[in-house]
């Protein structure tokens, strides 16, 4: 009986001593943290995607509280949570959240298998980074999408997938949070964050080829050849042509679509516009012929 008693008392004493040590240590070495950071962290989505520019949501929470102490949380935005979350955070901190235009990832390449023929076969590690390092890729365009899906790997929101028919990535507008992970993952900076636009409509140049016109066109039938027609027709000064490539500034673009209609190769595209009368009548004619 003695043995059991001794064992029980010894173990009990050890347990009590450990508990006291743990309690003292937790109090002594406790990290002082502003309780508001914890509250803000609760409201933030918790995806740790880095879209706000900080490494994780806790970094963002810390910056928001700091900003609130300094009088303003402008310039801080969680693209994943959007205006709803920012509104909650603003209420918590008794600040006003700045309104931010929603953005979306846009893939600036239309080099589908049909438009851009494959001239070589790549037999190495199938990541965009590796293929980019090995050379121009499998086509004559050294700037275009390589189709290995580094962007898909990087996306934490299941918002981008490679279409197996075109071998190009496609962005799901509903799911995209414009966190920018795919932009960083693409070794050729093909993906860009652009404004979602009024009614979700956008116009952009779906090409990043900087080779001279004839060379670009030979490699891909929908390449930008820098013919400057778009530049000449834009009344809003939104278009610049640099290094044989046209670029539309989304801040200035008014979605008038004049450049889209004029582009000889079709490299300028408009997204989410209704089908216009003229096009539907061409369709009707085509159907009638068939």
């Amino acid at each position: 009986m003695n043995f059991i008693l001794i064992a029980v008392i010894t173990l009990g004493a050890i347990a009590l001593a450990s508990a006291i040590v743990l309690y003292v240590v937790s109090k002594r070495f406790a990290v002082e943290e502003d309780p508001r950071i914890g509250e803000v962290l609760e409201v933030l989505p918790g995806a740790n995607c880095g879209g706000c520019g900080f490494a994780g949501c806790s970094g963002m929470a810390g910056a928001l509280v700091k900003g609130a102490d300094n009088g303003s949380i402008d310039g801080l935005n969680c693209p994943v949570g959007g205006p709803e979350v920012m509104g909650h955070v603003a209420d918590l901190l008794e600040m006003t959240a700045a309104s931010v235009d929603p953005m979306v990832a846009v893939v600036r390449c239309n080099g589908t298998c049909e438009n851009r023929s494959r001239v070589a076969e790549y037999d190495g590690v199938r990541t965009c980074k590796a293929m980019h390092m090995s050379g121009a890729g499998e086509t004559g365009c050294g700037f275009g999408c390589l189709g290995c899906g580094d962007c898909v790997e990087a996306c934490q929101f299941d918002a981008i997938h490679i279409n197996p028919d075109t071998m190009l990535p496609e962005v799901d507008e509903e799911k995209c949070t414009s966190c920018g992970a795919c932009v960083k993952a693409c070794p050729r900076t093909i993906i860009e964050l652009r404004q979602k636009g009024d009614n979700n409509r956008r116009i952009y140049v779906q090409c990043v080829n900087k080779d001279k016109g004839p060379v670009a066109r030979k490699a891909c039938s929908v390449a930008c050849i820098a013919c400057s027609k778009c530049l000449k027709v834009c009344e809003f000064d939104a278009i610049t042509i640099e290094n044989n490539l046209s670029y539309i500034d989304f801040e200035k673009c008014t979605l008038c679509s004049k450049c889209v209609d004029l582009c000889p190769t079709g490299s300028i595209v408009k997204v989410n516009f209704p089908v216009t009368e003229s096009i539907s009548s061409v369709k009707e004619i085509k159907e009638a012929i068939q």
Partner: protein
Amino acid sequence: MNKLVVSLSPHAHGSDSVERNMRGVIIALMPALLISFYYFGLGSVVVCLTSVAACLFFEWAISKYVLKRQPSLTDGSAMLTGLLLGMNLPSNLPVWIILVGALIAIGVGKMSFGGLGANIFNPALVGRCFLLVSFPAPMTLWPVQGQLTTYTDAVTGATPLGLMKWAIKSGNSDVLNGLPSSIDMLLGNISNGMGAGTIGEVSALALLLGLIYLLWKKVITWHIPISIILTVFVLSGLMHLYKPYYANPVQVILSGGLMLGAIFMATDYVTSPMTYKGQLIYGVCIGLLTIVIRNFGSYPEGMSFAILIMNAFTPLINHYVKPKRFGEVPAKKKGE
């Protein structure tokens, strides 16, 4: 003309492959396997066949149904595990125990970590040690040689290692006179009613032939086997000089699973260190542990446990032991 193929360099590859290495080890095991059939007969054939078949089956079944991926039986690693497991068992072990061993070896020792290349412990040894600890009696009844048509009903006896243990425990060096001569141990001719040991460990000569083959075909390098054998030789020599009831070093390196372990088990790629320096450290420590367990522990055989313990240290060795970088010269004057 077809499209040109492109990739990053290098564009050439040597003739080495995983299959070639596994095949090399299996061929190197053949002398020992054939000798064991000669000494143990039916029992060893049944044990080895069962072990190989069971390992192949479990690897296929677990790959396909549990891990849900393509089974890769053709790389030869499951067959090798089966063969090595079988050679680490006594020839009178019942089939159902072998099946349990194979399941543990493949299922726990290999597949639970992620398959080929991902395991920390040598799967065959995991299986063997599990069986040793779970079924101590069947795993320590060693058949006497020469009973070619018996299986589980073989007559058993104490092994040379058992004798050595008894000599240490009783402090009586006369016991060691009962050991077979060194030549006999080399050839594997362990008679006089003595049990010979596990299937694979009897003939040191056959195992050494396997070592020569492995070195010639560049499947392994000398670092692990030689460092283990030398360490055991030196340490057991010191022990023998200290007290005569410790067996002499030649008898020690020829006895038990030392040769089998040093040549085939410790040299397993996945569980041994990646650098030559690391392999030497690994080998010396295995030798040390083997001597400690054999002489001071309660088991007569220490090799399997020594290897498993050092397997656990392999990641640590890999982390701290780096090869010498080219150009890493301490105090060379620039340009002289």
